[in-house]
Every structure is written in C-alpha cells, then in structure tokens.
C-alpha cells in the first residue's frame, strides 16, 4: 500500500510540474503586459523600464526558475496589476469563493436531486416534463444572463437583495442561485438517469416483490445507490465552482477567485493567472490523489494491479 501511495504521489507531483510549465508558457503567449501598464504615449525607455520592473526582461528559463523556486518558498510572486503578493490576494479571496461555492452547491443539490427523483419516479408524467424543461433551461441559459435577471427583478424592482458586493448573508443569495442554477440542472439530469437505471435493477424489483411500500423502495434501495454518481459529480463541480465562477463573480462584483482570475487575464497579470490556475489544479490533483488512495484502501484489487 505505501508503494501504491508513493506511486500516485509521484504522478500527482508530475502533473503539477507539467501544469506549472504549461501555464507559465501559456500566459506568455498572450503578449506583453507592460503595454497595459504604461500610458499610451510612453516611449521605448519607459516600456523597457516597466518590463525590467516586472522581471520580464530576463530569459524564459530564468523567469521559470524564479517562479519555481518561489513556489517552494511559498512565494507566488507579486501581481503586476495590484503590486501586492499574489498569495495574499489569493488567500483574501479564497474564503469568499468557498462560501459562495458551498451555498451554490447546497442550492443545486437541494433543487436538482428531488426534481431528478420525482422525474424518474413519474417518468413521462407532468413532473418528468417539468424536470426536462428545467434541465434544458438550466443548461441553456448563460449564468451572466440569469444573474442580470435576478439583479433586475429581486434587487432593482423588489429591493429584496443588494445588487452586488459581499458582507452579509443577503449578498450571497443571488450569486449562489445564479451559480447553482446550471449545476442544479446537471445534477437533476444525472439523478434522473441514475434513478431510472437503479429502479430497473433486480434488487429493486425484489424489494417490490417483497411487498415493501413504494416510498421505502425509492428512499432506501433506489435513492441511496443512485446517489453515488451524483455525489461524485458534485465533488468535481464544487472544485469548479470555487475556481472558475468567473462570470457570476464579475456580474455580482463578488470578491472571489473567479473574479481574480478574470482580472488576471484582462490585465495580463501573469503571476495572478499562474497562481490561480496552479492552485486550482493543485486542488484537483490533491482530491484525485486522496480518492485514488481511498479506492485502493476500499478495493485491494486496485493496488495489486499496480
């Protein structure tokens, strides 16, 4: 088992190393950030001074080495745009993203799972039709549009919620709905298909033959088993919500990681983009590592296959 874990750890570190190389090179393909940081009429000397200040006048290997060694010291560099340490920026935004993602996930599960179950149990009926329409709308409507509709109706017309920003529970409601809406539709679809599959299985038929009440068959035998793929998807979606809620966070001026990434891309702020992508990727790699190890603990065949 330790050998298996070490093997997986090696893969994880290799993935992170490759990610660091790719993102380092990728941001540099986008062009020169100095052009956005000097006034339009600035001369060549001012441009050169700005590139020197940002450390962009060094060769690529030197820049990468500096980036890599910084990583080991816990230094993700200094933002070109903000001129503050990126780690500080990231950590100041992370709690907001975690909070928004948690509430949006709760919303998407509370809406998506019951709707999916009802649609599966009443296949072809009214509930199923309504569920399909909901799923279609959820997946088709862009989140920025949902966000703007929510702002116009609930904030401007009704005055129930603040239009943007953060700080109180009321600030959370609309961004969480706008972000969770798409994922609710995805969770609903998966719950429905998973439930349909489980409801057709032999053990559910047997439970029914045994004369168990229908609600018990659904709740105890079908739902619990149908939930496994939904929760697996929800776990991945949670990481996505934390790291790439770019549009929703921008529309609602929510100070999270997604907005930071958007700003980083807009201003060609290489250190910010590198850090957000690498830390987001790091989260996925760590989660995958633990899942792999957990699988191996649960199912010995996996570790023997290695």
């Amino acid at each position, binding site marked *: 088992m330790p050998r298996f874990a070490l093997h997986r750890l090696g893969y994880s570190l290799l993935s992170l190393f490759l990610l660091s190389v790719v993102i380092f090179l990728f941001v540099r393909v986008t062009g020169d950030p100095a052009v956005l940081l000097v006034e339009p*009429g600035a*001369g060549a000397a001012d441009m050169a001074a700005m590139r020197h200040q940002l450390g962009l006048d060094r060769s690529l290997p030197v820049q990468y080495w500096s980036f890599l060694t910084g990583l080991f010291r816990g230094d993700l560099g200094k933002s070109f745009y903000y001129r*503050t340490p990126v780690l500080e920026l990231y950590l100041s935004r992370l709690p907001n993203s975690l909070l928004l993602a948690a509430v949006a996930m709760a919303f998407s599960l509370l809406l998506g799972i019951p709707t999916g179950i009802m649609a599966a149990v009443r296949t072809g009926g009214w509930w199923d039709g309504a569920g399909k329409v909901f799923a279609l709308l959820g997946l088709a409507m862009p989140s920025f549009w949902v966000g703007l509709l929510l702002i116009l109706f609930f*904030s401007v017309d009704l005055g129930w919620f603040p239009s943007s*920003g953060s700080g109180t529970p009321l600030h959370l409601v609309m961004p969480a709905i706008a972000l969770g809406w798409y994922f609710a539709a995805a969770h609903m679809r998966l719950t429905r298909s998973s439930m349909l599959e489980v409801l057709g299985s032999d053990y559910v038929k047997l439970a029914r033959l045994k004369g168990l009440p229908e609600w018990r068959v659904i709740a105890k035998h079908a739902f619990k088993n149908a939930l496994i793929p939904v929760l697996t998807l929800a776990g991945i979606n949670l990481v996505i919500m934390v790291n790439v809620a770019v549009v929703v966070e921008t*529309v609602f*001026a929510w*100070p999270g990681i997604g907005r*930071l990434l958007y700003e980083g891309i807009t201003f060609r702020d290489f250190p910010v983009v590198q850090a957000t992508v690498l830390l987001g990727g790091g989260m996925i790699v760590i989660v995958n590592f633990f899942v792999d190890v957990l699988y191996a603990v649960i199912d010995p065949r996996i570790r023997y296959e290695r």
Partner: protein
Amino acid sequence: MTPGMLRGFVVLFLAVALATPVLSAEGTLTWGVHVTLAARWLDPQETEGVITPFMVLYALHDALVKPMPGSMNTPSLAESWSASKDALTYEFVLRKGVKFHNGDPVTAEDVKFSFERYKGSAAAVLKAKVREIQIVDPGRVRFHLNEPWPDFMTFYGTSASGAGWIVPKKYVEKVGDDGFKRAPIGAGPYKFVSFNPGVELVMEAFDGYWRKKPSVQRLVFRSITDEATRAAALKRGDVDIAYLFAGPIAAELHRTPGLRLVAPLLSGVFWLDFLDQWDPKSPWHDKRVRQAASLAIDRAAINQAELLGLGTIHGNWIPPQFEFALTLPPPAYDPTKAKALLAEAGYPHGFDAGDFHPFPPYDSMGEAVANYLQAVGIRTHLRTMERAAFLTAMREKTIKGVMINITGAAGNAATRLEAYVAKSGIYSRGVVPEIEDLLQRQAREPDPRVRQALLHQAQKLVIDHALYAPIYQLAFIWGLGPRVEEPAADLIKMHAYSAPYEDVRLKK
C-alpha cells in the same frame, strides 16, 4: 478696562463661542467605480500617465502643484512657484504648517525624496531632464534642469505624472514600499482606513487638511466592473455615484426618477487615423479620399447614440481645453460632397479600403463610423481586437488600413503632436516636413506666445492635410443618486472623476 467690562467681554465671548456650531464632516458617500482598484494607486510613486490613479490620489495625497478648479497648475502644497528666465530653474516655496496624516510636517526633504523615488510613467524623461534638486531651506526647493524645457510643469505639475505628489520620507523609509501600499499616509483631504484589493477602498476625512475641512466624513470606492450591475447598484441606492455609462444604459438611467447624469469631458478626442495614407499605392494616400471619409461621418448622430449627445464635436483632434490647442469649426456631414470627392479622386463607385479597427472597448462607435463610410462607398472590413493585443499592434505599427484612435494622456498640444505627428513620435507613421519644422522650433522656444503661434500652425496643417479626421470629444458619463448635492464633477477640467474631494457634499 473695568472688571465689569472684562466680565462682560468674557461672557460675550463664551456666548458667541457656544452659539457657533462646530462644523464637522458627516455621512458616507459611496462610489461604484468601473475599474478594479489596485494597490499601486495608493502610492504616487507608481502612477501611470493615465487619469485612473488620480481618482485615489486626489483623496489620499497632495501635490506641490496640481490641476484644480480654474487652473491646470494650481499651487497646493507649494504656496507659489516660479521659473527662471532661462527656463533652467524652477523654485517652489512650500505652504507653511501643512502636515501629513501622521502629523509630520511636509518639508523640502519630502519633495526631493518623492521625486527621486518616483518610477511611474514619464520617470525616464523627467529624470533625464532634471540635473539636481536643491533644498534651499526646509520650506524651499529648487529644481535645476540640464537644458531649457518649457514643458517641465506640464509633466511635474499636472496629471501627466505622479512625480509632484508628495509622500512622507520618514514614514516610507520606516515601512518600505510594500508597507506604504498597505497603510499609505499622505497629505490629502482623506485618510486611509482600509483597502481590499480589487474590491473596496475606505477613507475618512482629515480635519487638518490645509485647503478646507472635508464635508463628507467617509468615502467608499467599490469596484463594480460590470456596467449593468453598476447601474442596478445606483438605482437601488447601494452606491451614490457610479462611473462610466454609455448608450442604452445611460439612457435608462436618464429616464429613472431621482437619478441624474453628469458627463465631464475627457482629454480624449476620437479621430479617424488613416494608417495607410503614407503608402503611395493606397487610395488613402489621396487627400481627397481622406477628406471624403471625414465628410461621410454623421458625428452628431453617433454622439447622440453613444453618449446621449454629451460629447462635443470639434474640428481639431486635440481637445480645446489643452494648453496651446487650436479651436477649429466642427467638420461638416455631407455625404453628397464626399461621393463627389471620391469620384474626383478616381473612385466613382467607391473602393475596398482594407481593414477598419475600432479602438477597444468602443467597438459599437467604430462600427457606426464604418457604416457611414460604407454608405459613401468606402468599404472596409471591421476588425475588432482585444484591448491589450490592439495596443501592442498599435505600438508596433502592425495595424493596417484605417482605425479609430483616441488617447487620454494628460499634457498639452505639444505633447500630443510629439507622440502622434512628430518624426520621433511613438505612433507617427510618416512626416510632413513643414509640420516637423514647426514642432522642432516650438520645442526650443521659451516664449509661450511664440510657441503657441508655432503650435497653432502645426495643428492647422494637420487638419489641412487631412492627416487625421476628428470625430468627437469623449464624455465620461456618471450617474448620481438622490443623496448627492455636490459630486465635484468637472470642477477640474478634463478630470474624469470627483475632485477635489473636499468639495464633495451630501444633501442635509
């Protein structure tokens, strides 16, 4: 004086003192700003030559000389300044009794330190021109230049750079550059309270400000980069002032009861830039074609659609508010004459004019101009670009065809001509010898009247040669909520934001 009289005076004095209300700042004013608030704007050291950082600097910091209502070079921390006849020495006398927010006095040492520390836009040119900074005494400082430079105060005493904005030497040396950005101390009308990068900046009134005591106790700048969200925040009262609206959203705010719009004019005039005119094989090489393009544009209609008519139409591509600017009558809209000129130039059925590049993010305005050109037969291919890529291509001169151009850089008519028309200009693509000669002569001319005459001639020639076709001066539309009495909009000419902040007032 008898004891009875003395008692009477004391009683009278106390009665007057007690009856006079102590005026103190009150209330909170919140702005929804269109940009992402950056820590570097808290420190004048890193100021770019664009107007955005001055949104913050005017609150937290102060300059020796800066643009204020009435004048672009108003003595502030300096009570006066003078230039020697040979334009080689500039002397500043500091205002007495002025203090930073931490109670330290503003001294000549701070002035010297701030200049030497400055590394923002124009640092290279300023430091190349200034030979020495001499501290005559704690209240007097003298700048010695290497050679006569008539534009020294344009760079040092306006928003063309942040070199004249003063920071406390002792405090900066104690906390370092990063520490200063975390907790900046300045000599402006507002003190720093808190800053969440990209999210919110909070400041409170500094009662010891030399010019006047601010009226509003607390200022909050909140970054809301999405225009529709900013409009919603204003309508709902989440913010009192919101910056930058255009087109339909501006019109919607204009119709909303309780809200009003103001629109300071910026230092940028859009102009049509005929990039290919220097290529003898290009149709744009013919002056009549360029004149036809100018006649084809209905500027008033585009201004109405984009800015609710709040921009202003000029016959010059240099804003009339600039020093040495020449005022010219607005260009006519005459598509019939435009077609006639095209026919005269050998294009009776129009021509394929290559690529057309709007200046991002003003794509819709560019599209409108391209449509007007199309209507007279000048057929272009609209190419919209991401802003950074566009600026790079512009700087590297890889953009071809025709483009909409604009710049908000501070300065005067000479600095603008130097960047876009002079042989050495960063964006110049060709030279008209007659204009170049005028520009060379004005750069050496110490007499402002002679200099103005030379610059007026140069500007007239640019338009006569149809090198550029001005469109309209950009208005920066703000929305104001019902609580705002004095937003301090447009008090300082061509300043995009509220300023001076000590003049801002809420309704009682």
